């Protein structure tokens, strides 16, 4: 796991890093769930939308499941083509 926290700090500020640190258990669970779903570019997802993934794991899982359910079987590809869709999780 090689998340560029410097990038998160640059784009979302120090308090976003604090949010990541304070919710590390949930962040790790959420990352593991993204990996399980087949997102091998999970680092990019977290770096671009860190605040979407610091929530309680069950809450994030529900939102992600709803999102990929709507997108269909090709969800990995669709989200890779348009990362902006992840904004729905905010």
């Amino acid at each position: 796991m090689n998340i560029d926290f410097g990038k998160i700090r640059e784009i979302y500020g120090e308090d976003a890093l604090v949010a990541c640190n304070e919710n590390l258990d949930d962040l790790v669970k959420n990352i593991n769930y993204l990996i399980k779903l087949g997102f091998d570019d999970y680092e990019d997802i977290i770096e671009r939308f860190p605040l979407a993934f610091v929530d309680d794991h069950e809450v994030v899982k529900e939102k992600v499941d709803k999102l990929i359910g709507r997108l269909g079987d090709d969800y990995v590809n669709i989200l890779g083509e348009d990362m902006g869709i992840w904004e729905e999780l905010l």
Partner: protein
Amino acid sequence: MIQEDISVSKLLKNYGVNYSSFDNDTKDMIESSSDTKVMTRALEFLVNIVGVSPKRIEKCPSVLYLNPGCLKDNYEELINRGINREKIIGCLHILSSEPGIISETYEYVSKNYGVGTFNKNVSILGVPVSRIQEFERFSSRMSKSAILSAAITTLRPAEVSTILGICEKYGVEPSGSFFQKGVGEITEIVKICLENNLEISGSMFRKSSFEIRRIINICREKNVEITGSVFLKGAEEVGKIIDTCRKHNIPITGSVFRRDSDEIEDIVKVCNELGIPISGTVFLRDADEIRRIHTVCSKYGVELSANVFKKSADEIEEIVKVCQKYGLDITATVFKKSASSLDKSMKFVSENYGRSYLTPLIVVTDANHLKKVFPYLDSRGTLEAVIASPAILGLKFEELIEREKLIESIGEDDVVKGRFNPIYGLSRKKYEEKKEHIQTKGVVVK
């Protein structure tokens, strides 16, 4: 010199502090310290002005005998430096710092480690710069945050070097908690983790190796996942917490281990009384604070989502006021940022570009990043597209420029039907594939 035991006991009792809770060494220190007038002023300041609970003073009695005359000045120095009251109360001993230490250390650590350090590590402000510099010789072997954690302890540099050697031997990244233990204990704890196939987390080093084994056994007996959070409490309390959660049908997530089982009962009671769904985040606050948060949310019509409990009632009120100032609808996301950073971002955007740009993703973006990207996009005549497709803000400025150049090289437009070109929205992997494809197949300019 305090002349009579009974004077000390009575004085402390007037402020709700239980003198008999102190061990003999502490009592000796208090008795040989400054006079009752200074101690009275210290207690008056701590209890009645700052609002420190007597229990907190009982846990940190050094404030009563180490530089009690400096408490007020040190407190004001910390507040002026932006350290909030809750954090100061959680780290009371730094109020006993020698005059000038806090200021000097603040300047040094801000410059060399970042202002954000103090969010996680307020204790460092009580450490002289000279001591921090003693551990900077290990900068190639441990992170900056670990250096500061080592400086907070009473370890000598040679001891820290030995601990680093153990970490290097087992391939473990040294975190701050490692320095709370001696060399023998650290080795034992690392062995236990390896035996049980557990990821080594900082919270483990707050416990003895014996206690860690007990906690692991209890979690296994009760079929609870072993994460770093279970090591926040002693084994017996971990057992009680698990039983209490099961009694009330509460999912056993990491946050429950921040509370004792009694506190969990209080929280459940308050949540049931006020109709608050019991999510993991409610356990970030105690029952009284949950009640205060409920009051603030009711006052401002804020939905009691899980995110609000990540902030104190005071912080929530500050965030709500900032949102109201700029006419922003309050969404759950704003509670993941501080009021001051939201204010900076919203002020910059609304004063220069108007409130129509205050979308959820834009307001949580750091003001400094907005100050680079917005003027640039505005100069390109493409800024308006950021409302419909703000995800471009998730790119570093350099990444944005690079993608812009690629888009130009293939003769496409930056903005297509009011949204940024899809190339800005590609994942890093897809972007690299696209770039390679364009570069190997050649560019066709329309």
